């Protein structure tokens, strides 16, 4: 079966498709080091001028810092709220629990353009348009489902009797949370935090609607640059965006593998 002709063709086709999923995104890398001043492959010389421009331009640096700040705070907020909610849902029972769980997944299911409309219209009277608080709240809400999913998955493998033992031996809920539940589901929380960070770091549709001048995130500047479509600095910024995502994913993979080995 494994070495059959059909099997081999299937295997090659699968790798081709996987290549198409990854390789196009890597095109940004050679384009970002072209010596030309327009989007092109570096046939006629390699240069780091576009990275230099990226790292010396006050606009790009400010966007980088803003994106980082927003992603860290939004990720922390959604991790806190999402983790607590997932733990609560895990211990509660009743007819409404599944409905509440689905309710908390809404920000993931609703198309981003509709979330953008809703935030835009609601943030205007609240004075949150074009403010850090407005964007952080929006990103945190969009990321809550990610955290609820990863933490719930971790809780599914957690022995309920440990919690019952802790509570029946007289530990309060905060103590049980801190000493029993949270340490056991730390990998799930970490995964949620990483995904929430990446979600905010890459978010563009909602950000386009609720930011204007004061807050101008990296994806927003990338979007503007792409619409003008000439400057290879955009390719350099895309490389930075990809690398940040990769660093977080790889770091997370290494951490969880280490944990797996410790457990084994």
């Amino acid at each position, binding site marked *: *079966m*494994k070495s059959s002709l*059909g099997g081999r063709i*299937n*295997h090659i*086709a*699968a790798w081709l*498709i*996987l290549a198409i*999923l*990854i390789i*196009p*995104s890597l*095109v*940004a890398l050679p*384009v970002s080091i072209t010596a030309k001043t327009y*989007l092109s492959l570096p046939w006629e010389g390699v240069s780091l001028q576009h990275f230099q421009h990226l790292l010396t331009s006050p606009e790009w640096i400010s966007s980088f810092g803003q994106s980082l700040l927003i992603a860290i705070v939004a990720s922390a907020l959604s991790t806190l*709220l999402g983790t607590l*909610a997932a733990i*609560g849902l895990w*211990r*509660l029972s009743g007819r409404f629990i599944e409905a*509440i769980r689905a*309710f908390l*997944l809404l*920000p*993931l*299911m*609703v*198309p*981003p*353009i*509709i*979330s953008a*409309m*809703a935030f*835009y*219209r*609601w943030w205007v009277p609240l004075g949150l348009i074009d403010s850090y608080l407005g964007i952080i709240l929006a990103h945190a*809400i969009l990321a*809550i489902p*990610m955290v609820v*999913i990863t933490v719930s*998955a971790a809780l599914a493998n957690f022995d309920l*009797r440990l919690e019952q033992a802790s*509570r*029946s031996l007289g530990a309060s*809920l905060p103590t049980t949370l801190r000493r029993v539940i949270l340490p056991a589901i730390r990998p799930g929380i970490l*995964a949620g935090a990483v995904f929430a960070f990446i979600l905010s770091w890459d978010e*563009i*549709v909602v950000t*386009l609607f609720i930011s204007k001048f004061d807050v101008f995130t990296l994806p927003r500047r*990338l*979007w503007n640059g792409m619409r003008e479509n000439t400057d290879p600095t*955009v*390719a350099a910024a895309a490389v930075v*965006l*990809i690398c940040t*995502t990769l660093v977080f994913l790889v770091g997370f*993979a290494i951490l969880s593998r280490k944990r797996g080995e410790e457990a084994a």
Partner: protein
Amino acid sequence: MARAPYKGARALNVMATRTSRFNPYWLLVAPAVLLVLALYVAPIVNVLLLSVTDPKPGLGNYVKIFESDTVANLIWRTIRLCLITTAAAVTLGYVVSYAMLHALSHVRRRMMSILLISFWISVLVRSFAWLMLLGHNGLINDLLIGLGLISEPLPLMRNELGVLIGMTEYMVPYAILPLLANMQGIDPRVTSASRSLGASSAQTFFRVFLPLTKPGIIAASLLVFISSLGFYVTPAILGGGKVQMIAEYISVQLLVTVRWGVAAMLATLMIASVLALMYVLNRFMKLSVVFGGVAR
């Protein structure tokens, strides 16, 4: 209540059950629920209501579906592009899932990492990459002209083809996760039995394996279709303004012509279809399985 190990604890437990009419775990759920309710669901309902109140109360915005060719064409184009994307992404996803199912475990892990990386690379970066590849002076046209295969650049973007390429490439990982979850649940002895009873490998695939993966195919198709409906970045960049889908049209209505009513009507249609299809999807495959793969 579980047996308490000694009397004191049992007394405590009895007390706990008596006083804890109110389960303290609700306090953990409350902050997230209240935040989502006040700052997410309420604003969405607020926007959807505009579809029957703006510019004047009534169903005027909904009548536009039948009266305005622009709106009807827009809806039809969105559905058509999403259907094509779904068919393409699920077919490609099936090929990859099938190979992953039969791959050695370390190869499967490698394939899974590639999927996750592609899943998490921003839609903006991926659209930008296709922009550089598919453009008039893009890498693909340059390469083909350099090889002497064509003399004029092919129109690969600023049209539906470009949008479809970008959307399909983005959606393949979404198709694979439910398909693989389904395929891994099939008992491998079923296909071995079919083979040992004399069926050819083609017969085994088409008459045994394929029918068993029907729930996976349906779940993957629904998930891809639902997620495609809201595409904004890819059509905006690869369509070059010529291939408007509902999301881009909504943004123009809000930011340029400031007509909330029509935009809210389209948003209502979109959210109703997404939630209805999500409900159907949940019947074929638990949402926790569908989304669980995403977060793994």
